[in-house]
């Protein structure tokens, strides 16, 4: 009993903090209540639920040799200190997702997002990450696709592979769109990001020929370069001759990014991808740590209401749709992210020293990612809601000048004046902050607020804003480059099923696969950039649906494995969150397809436009019949993709039920894990 006492106290503290968060009405509460509540929830959940899943549900066995022990080679398979591996795994799962989703979700107030992030991570997200890590660890560190093939059959494996590729395409498009929205018409931001390309190449040359392997050294050099670029960026933005060279429209940036993705993904990795990944990884970890420290020091009050009217009406300007199911797909990473299943079945399972380390790494690192999401939500909520909505609503609602935006946001019920908007833009060194959708600029304004409170005061705000933009753009560009390469290999695998020539991927076939991959995400990026509603509106729900759908697939795999291990009495641990995600993504997918409101449903939107075409009428935002045709085609492709995602989930669900029933009919375990006796040899 005495060993449980501190945990009971912690649970009570957490409950009290959550009580304050949930019941405060009318007065602004301090951000630290949310932070304290979240930390208590994480610690208690890890100690009781995380370890329960590891020890009782999965039955980890510290005596059983892991792949790192059994196949030790000092290269891919290396038994690694668990604290070191925690850092590795966390760095691999933390990306832009947990920072952007919560910012977008803040349009409903901070309460729904906070509750979903906490409940989602404990009951779904961390469970998924741990279970996939566990399953892969028992099978020599195989990848998610191979695991599904192994446990559910070749057809299910191929279906999952198709789904994963489609997700990759949408992720790349939405990430690229965030960069476009952050850098358009911003010479300061564009200049600093442009500098990272030659800077990374210099670093690449340095580690290739001058000091091979000196990662720390070259990263410090790179960091100094980045800071100089931010400082000098201000002069560029203020110069009448240089500023126009770095000022681009969204469409120009869109084609620039597509060209960049195509070229960067075929360059040797040591030249651009690897060195920039050093910078983006360390900057990301540093910025997350700084944000945590900054929030604690500043202890800001939350200015966003706990609930806005959009939580009830579902008619918010940032994204359309009711709280259920759309909140649960808008906050993906941070609560539960299917993409993590790919990471947890990647390098991490090959580096685990003992099965006993798996809950700390699988469950624990996901809790940490969730803490990042909580910080992003806090950051968005400390801003004046008027500024938040002026930055995140589409220009179709706001117009483009401060006066029209202030009037529109005030009419929504968040009073703000034009001078405040203009002043905020000036403070962060931008011409305008109106309709800078995508979440990243909002987060950057909030980070500038927090960082400048701690270091430098308001004079440093513009520096910190561009630091935050750079940090987000940097790892998104790395993801675009790395994702295009990964997508290319996925596509080669898929095409290889039809024609083995593609599997080799040498010469023409490799180029063709890269081209197809870039064209695929480029198409959705262009569609998002030219969308009068800002694109985030369309693409983020598609991304959320696909990412949560992959999580559902991973949790269904875990359920199958528990059945085949003859541990089906514990299968509720994975089956319940899987069912919840199937429900959310299924409902959201069907609503995106068939909802009668053209703002939500793709087919209703298409019908409105095709009717107008039949009448010979041009509907805004289209300006010509050709544009009408393009909008129609976009709607139909989005609908098709949505249907594809639904089909993948339905198919995997059928295979799950079938495999579980087959497993029940057999009176012994049927899993294909490396047996303990073989593992011990």
């Amino acid at each position, binding site marked *: 009993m005495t060993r449980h006492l501190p945990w009971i106290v912690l649970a009570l503290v957490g409950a009290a903090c959550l009580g304050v968060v949930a019941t405060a009405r009318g007065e602004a509460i301090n951000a630290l209540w949310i932070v304290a509540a979240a930390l208590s929830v994480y610690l208690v959940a890890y100690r009781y639920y995380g370890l329960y899943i590891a020890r009782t549900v999965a039955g980890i066995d510290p005596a059983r040799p892991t792949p790192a022990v059994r196949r030790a080679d000092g290269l*891919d398979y*290396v038994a690694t*200190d668990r604290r070191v591996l925690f850092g590795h795994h966390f760095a691999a799962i933390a990306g*832009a*997702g947990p920072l952007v989703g919560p910012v977008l979700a803040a349009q409903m107030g901070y309460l729904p997002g906070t509750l979903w992030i906490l409940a989602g991570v404990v009951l779904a997200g961390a469970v998924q990450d741990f279970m996939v890590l566990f399953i892969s660890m028992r099978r020599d560190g195989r990848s998610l696709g191979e695991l599904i093939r192994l446990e559910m059959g070749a057809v299910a494996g191929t279906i999952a592979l198709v789904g994963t590729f489609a997700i990759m395409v949408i992720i790349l498009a939405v990430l690229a769109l965030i960069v476009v929205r952050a850098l358009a018409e911003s010479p300061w931001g564009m200049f600093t990001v442009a500098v990272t390309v030659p800077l990374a190449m210099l670093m690449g040359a340095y580690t290739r020929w001058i000091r091979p392997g000196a*990662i720390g050294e070259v990263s410090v050099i790179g960091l100094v370069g980045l800071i100089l670029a931010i400082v000098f960026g201000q002069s560029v933005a203020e110069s009448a001759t240089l500023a126009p060279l770095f000022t681009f429209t969204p469409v120009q940036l869109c084609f620039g990014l597509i060209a960049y993705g195509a070229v960067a993904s075929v360059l040797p*990795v040591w030249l651009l991808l*690897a060195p920039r990944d050093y910078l983006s*990884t360390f900057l990301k970890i540093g910025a997350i740590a700084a944000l945590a420290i900054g929030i604690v020091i500043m202890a800001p009050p939350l200015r966003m209401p706990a609930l806005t009217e959009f939580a009830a009406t579902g008619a918010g300007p940032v994204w359309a749709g009711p709280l259920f199911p759309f909140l649960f797909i808008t906050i993906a990473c941070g609560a539960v992210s299917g993409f993590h299943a790919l990471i947890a079945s990647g390098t991490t399972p090959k580096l685990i020293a003992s099965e006993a380390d798996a809950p700390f790494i699988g469950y624990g690192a996901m809790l940490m990612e969730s803490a990042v999401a909580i910080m992003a939500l806090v950051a968005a909520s400390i801003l004046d809601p008027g500024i938040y909505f002026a930055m995140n609503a589409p220009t179709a609602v706001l117009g483009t000048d401060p006066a029209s935006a202030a009037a529109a946001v005030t009419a929504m019920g968040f009073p703000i004046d034009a001078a405040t908007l203009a002043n905020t833009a000036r403070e962060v060194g931008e011409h305008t902050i109106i309709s800078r959708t995508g979440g990243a600029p909002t987060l950057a304004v909030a980070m500038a607020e927090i960082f400048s409170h701690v270091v430098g005061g308001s004079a440093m705000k513009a520096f910190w804003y561009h630091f935050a933009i750079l940090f987000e753009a940097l790892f998104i560009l790395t993801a675009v480059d790395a994702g295009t390469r990964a997508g290319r290999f996925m596509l080669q695998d898929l095409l290889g099923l039809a024609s083995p020539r593609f599997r080799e991927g040498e010469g023409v076939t490799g180029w063709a696969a890269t081209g197809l991959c870039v064209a695929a995400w480029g198409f959705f990026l262009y569609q998002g950039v030219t969308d009068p509603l800002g694109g985030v509106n369309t693409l983020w729900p598609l991304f959320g649906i696909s990412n949560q759908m992959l999580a559902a697939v991973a949790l269904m795999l875990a359920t199958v494995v528990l059945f085949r291990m003859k541990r089906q009495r514990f299968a509720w641990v994975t089956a319940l969150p899987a069912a919840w995600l199937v429900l959310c993504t299924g409902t959201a997918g069907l609503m995106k397809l068939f909802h009668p409101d053209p703002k939500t449903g793709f087919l209703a939107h298409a019908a409105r436009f095709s009717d107008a075409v039949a009448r010979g009428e041009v509907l805004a935002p289209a300006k010509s019949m050709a544009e009408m045709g393009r909008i129609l085609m976009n709607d139909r492709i989005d609908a098709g993709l949505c249907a594809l995602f639904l089909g993948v989930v339905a198919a995997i669900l059928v295979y799950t039920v079938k495999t579980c029933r087959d497993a029940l009919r057999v009176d012994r375990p049927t899993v294909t894990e490396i047996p303990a006796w073989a593992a011990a040899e």
Partner: protein
Amino acid sequence: MGSSGMSLFARLAQTARLMVGMPDYDAYRDHLAAHHPDRVPMTRAEFFRDRQQARYGGGGGRCC
């Protein structure tokens, strides 16, 4: 492993390197010496290049 005896700085440095996919060179050399004394280990520079290609060649294991 034996890293429980490592200094905090050494462990942080190792964590940072592994975050970008670079395993410990000394551990690799020790492993080869202990289990495959007949093989010539890669030099530090060769090891760096080999691991860099292994990590990033297929994309780089990054999340959204």
